[in-house]
C-alpha cells in the first residue's frame, strides 16, 4: 500500500491545487453531514416546547442551507475526484506509452503485444484509475466524516454515543468474517463460470468432432452438470451476499434498539431531550457508511497495487540503444554496411540470438538472407536497423560505428518492411505516407506505387488511395499488405532497404516485376532481404545462410551450390516446393 501511494504521489503533486480542493471540500462535506442531525434535534426540541414561527423558519432554513451546502461540497469534491480519476488515467497511460514506444526489440520479446495492451488499457482503466483519486480520497473523506460524527455525538450526549458505537465492533468483526467467506465464494463462483466458458469454447471449436461422432447429447448432458455447479455457486454466493449487506446497511438497528431503550428511559427521566434521541437515530444510520469506504479502500488498494506494479515494470525497463557515442552522422549516402563478428543476446541474457555475423554489403547490392524459422534472420535485420543494439562485435556504416549515427537521421535513410506487414487504421495513402509530410511529393508517391506493384491493384479498392484500411476498414489480402509495406519503405528513396520476407504472399510473377522495377528505380540502393523464393535467392549478389543464429555459409549462388552444403539443400527443397505449389 505504501508503494502504491508513493507511486501516485508525483501525479497528485502535479495537480496540487485541485487535490487541495478535493480535501478541503471533503472536510467541509464531512462537517456539514455531522452537523445535520443537530438541526433535527433543535427543531424537534422546539416542537415539543414553545415553538415560535421565527425559530421554526430559522431552523428550516438551516436544514435547507446545510442540505444545499452538502450538495455544493459533494458536487465539487465528487466532480473533481472523477476529473482526477480520468485525468490520471490519461497521464499514466501517456507516460507509459511514450516510454514503451521507445523501447528496443528485446523489450517487445519480453512483453507480448497482448500483455502490453492489457497493462496499458485494463490495468490502468479498470484497476488504477478509480483508485488513484476516488479510492484514496473517499477514504480520506470517510475518515474525516467518522471523526466528525463521533466528535458530534460525544459532544451532544456521551451516553447516547456509547449506545450507537457499542454494537459497532461486533458488526465490524462479523462483517470481516463474512467478507472473507464471501471472497472465497466469489472465487468458487468465478471458477465455475470459467469452467463453463472453457467448456463452451472447447465445445464450439471442436464442433466437427462432436457432430461427427454424434455426441451432441452427451455434450449437453455434461453441460447440465456444469450449469448445476454454477447454480449452486450462484445461490450460495447470493445467500452470503445478503448477509454481508446486512452488516453495512441494516446493522444500525442494534444501535437504534439500544437508543430506544436506554435513550427513551433517559428522556422519560428528563436526563435527555427527545430531539437528541431522534438526532442520534440519524447518527446511528450514518456511522456505518464511512466504514464501508474504509474497507473498500483496502480491497481496491490491494488490487490497484498489483496493477501499479505491472505498469511500473514497463517504466522500469530500459532500452539497450546507446546514444552517448557522439554524433558522427554525415550528409553522405549510405554506401556500405558491415557486420564484424556482431551478435545479440537473448532478452534474458542467457544465450545468443545471433552471433559471429561477419559480412559486408555495398551500395547497389542485394543480399539474400536464408535459413530455417528461428535461425535469426529477422534478428539480423533488426540489428541493421538498430531496433536492437548489438552487444558483441562491431557494426559499421560507411566505415563508422553504427551507434555514432543519429538514430532518426540514420533510419530516415533506411526503408524497412516487417515480417507481418503492419497496416494501421487509416487510408491507404496514410499507410504509405506514415505522416511524412515534408519533402514528399505526389510524384514520389506515384513512383512508390509503381515500383511496389500496388498501382495495378488500386482499382480493386473502392476509393483508391483514400480507401480506409486496417482493423475497422477494408480488408487487405496478404499480398496487398506486403505491397503497401514495400511502397511505404520505398517512398523516400532510401539508401538501404531491409525486407523481412516482404514478398512471400505475392505470386512469382509479381515478385519478379517488383525486383525489376526496384533495380531500375533504385539502382544504388543496398538491399538486405529475407526471402524464400528460389529465383530471388539465386539472383542475389550475396547469400547469407543462417543456422541457429550463426552464419553457416555465405557467397553467391554458384559458389554455394558448388559447395554442396546447407544452402544446396535449402535451395533444392525450395525449388521442389514451388513446383508442388505448396506454400506451407
Amino acid at each position, binding site marked *: 500500500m505504501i508503494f502504491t501511494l508513493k507511486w501516485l504521489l508525483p501525479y497528485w503533486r502535479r495537480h496540487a491545487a485541485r487535490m487541495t480542493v478535493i480535501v478541503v471540500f471533503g472536510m467541509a462535506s464531512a462537517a456539514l453531514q455531522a452537523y445535520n442531525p443537530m438541526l433535527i434535534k433543535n427543531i424537534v426540541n422546539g416542537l415539543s416546547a414553545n415553538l415560535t414561527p421565527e425559530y421554526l423558519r430559522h431552523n428550516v432554513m438551516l436544514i435547507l442551507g446545510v442540505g444545499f451546502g452538502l450538495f455544493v461540497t459533494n458536487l465539487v469534491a465528487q466532480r473533481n475526484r472523477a476529473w482526477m480519476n480520468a485525468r490520471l488515467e490519461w497521464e499514466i497511460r501517456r507516460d507509459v506509452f511514450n516510454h514503451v514506444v521507445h523501447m528496443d526489440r528485446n523489450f517487445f520479446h519480453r512483453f507480448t503485444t497482448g500483455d502490453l495492451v492489457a497493462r496499458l488499457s485494463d490495468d490502468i482503466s479498470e484497476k488504477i484509475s478509480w483508485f488513484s483519486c476516488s479510492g484514496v480520497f473517499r477514504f480520506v473523506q470517510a475518515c474525516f466524516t467518522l471523526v466528525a460524527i463521533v466528535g458530534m455525538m460525544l459532544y451532544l450526549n456521551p451516553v447516547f454515543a456509547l449506545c450507537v458505537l457499542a454494537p459497532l465492533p461486533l458488526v465490524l468483526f462479523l462483517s470481516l468474517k463474512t467478507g472473507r467467506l464471501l471472497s472465497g465464494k466469489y472465487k468458487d463462483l468465478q471458477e465455475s463460470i470459467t469452467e463453463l466458458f*472453457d467448456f463452451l469454447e*472447447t465445445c464450439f471449436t471442436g464442433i466437427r468432432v462432436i457432430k461427427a461422432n454424434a455426441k451432441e447429447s452427451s455434450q449437453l448432458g455434461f453441460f447440465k452438470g456444469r450449469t448445476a455447479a454454477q447454480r449452486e455457486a450462484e445461490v450460495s454466493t447470493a445467500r452470503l451476499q445478503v448477509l454481508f449487506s446486512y452488516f453495512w446497511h441494516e446493522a444500525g438497528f442494534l444501535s437504534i434498539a439500544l437508543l430506544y431503550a436506554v435513550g427513551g428511559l433517559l428522556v422519560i427521566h428528563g436526563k435527555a431531550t427527545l430531539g437528541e434521541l431522534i438526532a442520534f437515530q440519524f447518527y446511528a444510520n450514518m456511522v456505518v457508511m464511512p466504514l464501508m469506504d474504509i474497507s473498500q479502500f483496502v480491497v481496491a488498494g490491494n488490487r490497484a497495487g498489483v496493477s501499479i506494479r505491472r505498469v511500473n515494470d514497463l517504466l522500469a525497463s530500459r532500452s539497450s540503444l546507446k546514444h552517448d557515442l557522439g554524433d558522427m552522422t554525415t550528409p553522405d549516402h549510405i554506401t556500405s554496411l558491415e557486420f564484424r563478428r556482431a551478435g545479440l543476446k537473448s532478452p534474458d541474457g542467457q544465450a545468443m540470438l545471433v552471433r559471429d555475423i561477419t559480412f559486408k554489403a555495398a551500395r547497389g547490392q542485394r543480399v539474400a538472407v536464408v535459413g530455417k524459422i528461428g535461425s535469426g534472420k529477422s534478428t539480423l535485420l533488426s540489428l541493421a536497423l538498430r531496433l536492437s543494439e548489438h552487444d558483441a562485435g562491431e557494426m559499421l556504416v560507411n566505415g563508422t560505428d553504427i551507434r555514432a549515427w543519429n538514430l532518426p537521421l540514420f533510419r530516415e535513410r533506411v526503408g*524497412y518492411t516487417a515480417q507481418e506487414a503492419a497496416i494501421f487504421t487509416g487510408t491507404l495513402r496514410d499507410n504509405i505516407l506514415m505522416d511524412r509530410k515534408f519533402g514528399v511529393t505526389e510524384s514520389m508517391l506515384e513512383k512508390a506505387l509503381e515500383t511496389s506493384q500496388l498501382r495495378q491493384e488500386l482499382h480493386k479498392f473502392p476509393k483508391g488511395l483514400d480507401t480506409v484500411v486496417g482493423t475497422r476498414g477494408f480488408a487487405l489480402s496478404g499480398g496487398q499488405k506486403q505491397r503497401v509495406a514495400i511502397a511505404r519503405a520505398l517512398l523516400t528513396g532510401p539508401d538501404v532497404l531491409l525486407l523481412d520476407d516482404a514478398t512471400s504472399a505475392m505470386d512469382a510473377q509479381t515478385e519478379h516485376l517488383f525486383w525489376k522495377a526496384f533495380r531500375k528505380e533504385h539502382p544504388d540502393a543496398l538491399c538486405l532481404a529475407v526471402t524464400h523464393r528460389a529465383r530471388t535467392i539465386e539472383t542475389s549478389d550475396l547469400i547469407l545462410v543462417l543456422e541457429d543464429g550463426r552464419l553457416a555459409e555465405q557467397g553467391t549462388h554458384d559458389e554455394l551450390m558448388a559447395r554442396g552444403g546447407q544452402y544446396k539443400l535449402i535451395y533444392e527443397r525450395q525449388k521442389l516446393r514451388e513446383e508442388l505449389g505448396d506454400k506451407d
Partner: protein
Amino acid sequence: MHHDNHDDGQDPKETINYKETFRLLSGLIRSRKGPFAVAFVYTLVSTLVSLLVPIIAKYVIDTALPARDTAALLVATGAYLATTVVFLYFNYLQVVQLARAGQDLIVDLKERLLGHMLSLDLEFYSSMPVGRMTARVQSDTSTLYALFTNTVISIVNDALMFAIAFFVMAYYNLKLTLMLVPMFPVLAVLGWIFVKVTSPMYVKVRKLAAEVPGFLTEQLNGIGVLQAFSREEDTSAKMEDLNRRKFTAEMRVELLNVVFFLSIVFLHPATTAAVFGIGGKMVMSGKLTVGVIVMFVMYLGYLFEPIFRFSEHLSVIQRSFSAGHRISKILALKPALTEPKDPHFLTTVRDSIDFRGVWMRYKEDSAWVLKNVSFSLPRGQSLAILGETGGGKTTVTSLLFRFYDFQKGHIEIDGTDIRKLSLGSLRSAIGLVQQDIYLFPGTVMDNLKLMDASIPDSRVHDAIRVMGLDPFFKKHPLDKKVKEKGANLSIGEKQVISLTRAMVLDQEVLVLDEATSNMDPHTERLITSAIKNLLKHKTVIIIAHRLSTIRSADRIMMISGGEVKELGTHDELLAAGGLYSKYYRLQYGEGE
C-alpha cells in the same frame, strides 16, 4: 479477460424485435410461476414489516415518552427489534428464493440454447466467432438473470412500498402527504429523461474505451515499422488524442451523472425541510404531533432509495431486451440438414465406402470444390489423403459425415446412398479425430469418453491397453483434472489423448485429421505408434502429413484443385514418378 465479453455482435442500427423478445421473456417467467409467486409473498411480507418501523418510532415519541411509560417504551423497543428481525429474515428468504428461481430459469434457458445450437449445421459455426457464441450462452443469459432476480422484483417491491407508505402517510395526515406526492412522478420522469440523454453518451464512452485496446494492439504490433520510420512522436500524439477524446466524453457524462444524483440527494433535505416547515406550523396549531413529523421524515428516507435505483433498472431492462433479442434470433434458426424420411439405420460398415464421380460446391454460384472424385475404401483398409491446403482434402471427409450435401455423383456405404441413412446412425458409425484440440474442463477420463457418461470405464482401459499407452496414462492418470482447456498438457499429450479417444469411442471407420505440430521426439514416437495402432485396427481415412503415417496407409490419394490426381499404393505412385514422388522427396529431405 474473456469473461467480460462485450462483443455483442450486433449492428447498432438493427432494431430489436420487442414483440418476439417479450414473448421469450414472459414465457420464461411463466415457466417458473410458482417459485416467483413464493418470492413475491416474501417480498410483500418484508416490505410491509419494514414499513412498520416509522410507526413504532411515532408510537415511542407520541405515546410512550410523553406518558413516561417505561413498560410501553420497552415493548416498543421489543417490537422494533422483532420487526427488524422479521424483515431481515424475510428479505433473506426472498433473495435466496429469487436466486434459486432465477437460476433454475436461466439454467433451463442456457441448456435450451446450447441444445439448439448443437442441432444447427456447421454453417452456423462458421458464421459466428466462438467468442460471440459463448457470450450468447453465458453473458446474455446472465444479463437476463439480473433482470429476473433484481430488476423485476425490485420494481414490484418499490411500487408496493410507494403505495403503502403513501397510504399510511395519508392516513395520518392527508394534507402533508398530498403536498409530497406530486414530486415523485416528476422525479420518475426526470430519471427517465436522464437515462434517455445519457445512454447514447455512455455508448460513446464504451466505444472509446474499446478503441483504446484496439489502437494499442495495432500500434504495438507495428512497433518495428513505427520505429523504423521514426514515427514515435506521431504515435504518441495519436495516443494523446485518443486519451483526450476518452477523457472528454467521460467528463461530459460524468457531469450529468453527478449533478443528477446529487440533485436527488439534495431533494431529500429539501423535502425534510418542507415537512418540518409545513408540519411544524400544524404542530403549533395542534393539528399534528411531533411523532407524525418524524415518521414522515423517516418514510421519505425509504422513498428516496428507489429513485436512485430507477435509472439502473431502466438500463438493465434495455440491455435485457438486447440480450433477449440476440437469444431469440438464434433460437429461430433451423438446421438445413435433418434426418431423412424412413431412414436406414447404420450400425457399422460391413463392406466398403464408395465415392463415385462426386462433385461439390458450397454455394450455387461458387466454384466447384470437388470435381469428379471417386475412390473406394474396403473395410479394414486405410487411405491417406494428401494435397495442398484448400485443395479439397477436408471437404472429402466432411461429405462422408454429411456435414454438407454434394451436387452430383454418389456416396455409398455398403451400397446404400448416405442421404438415405439416418444422420445420427451415420455419424455414430464413423468417428472423427482431430488432433489440434482443446480439452474439456473435466478429468482425462471424461475427455477420453468425449463426455459420454454411458461409456463404461472398462472400455477406456481396454482401449489404452490395445493402443499400448499404459505408461502414458500412468503419467497422466485418468482422474487428472484438465485445466484451462488443457494448458497443463503439452500439444503432443493432447494429441495422444485425442487418438486414444478414437479407440474408446469404438467405431469401425475413423477419419483422422493429422496435425503437423513440432514436438519432442518421445511424444512424436508415441503418436506415430498410436496412429499405426489405429490403422491396424480400424478402417481409416487419414489426412496425412507425416511420412511414417503415409507409408503405413494401404493406399494414397493425391488431391489437388479438387481433383484426384493420383491414387494407388506407395510403391505404385513412386514408380509412376508423378506428383507423389516429388512430394515424397520433399518430405524425405532434411532441413526446413
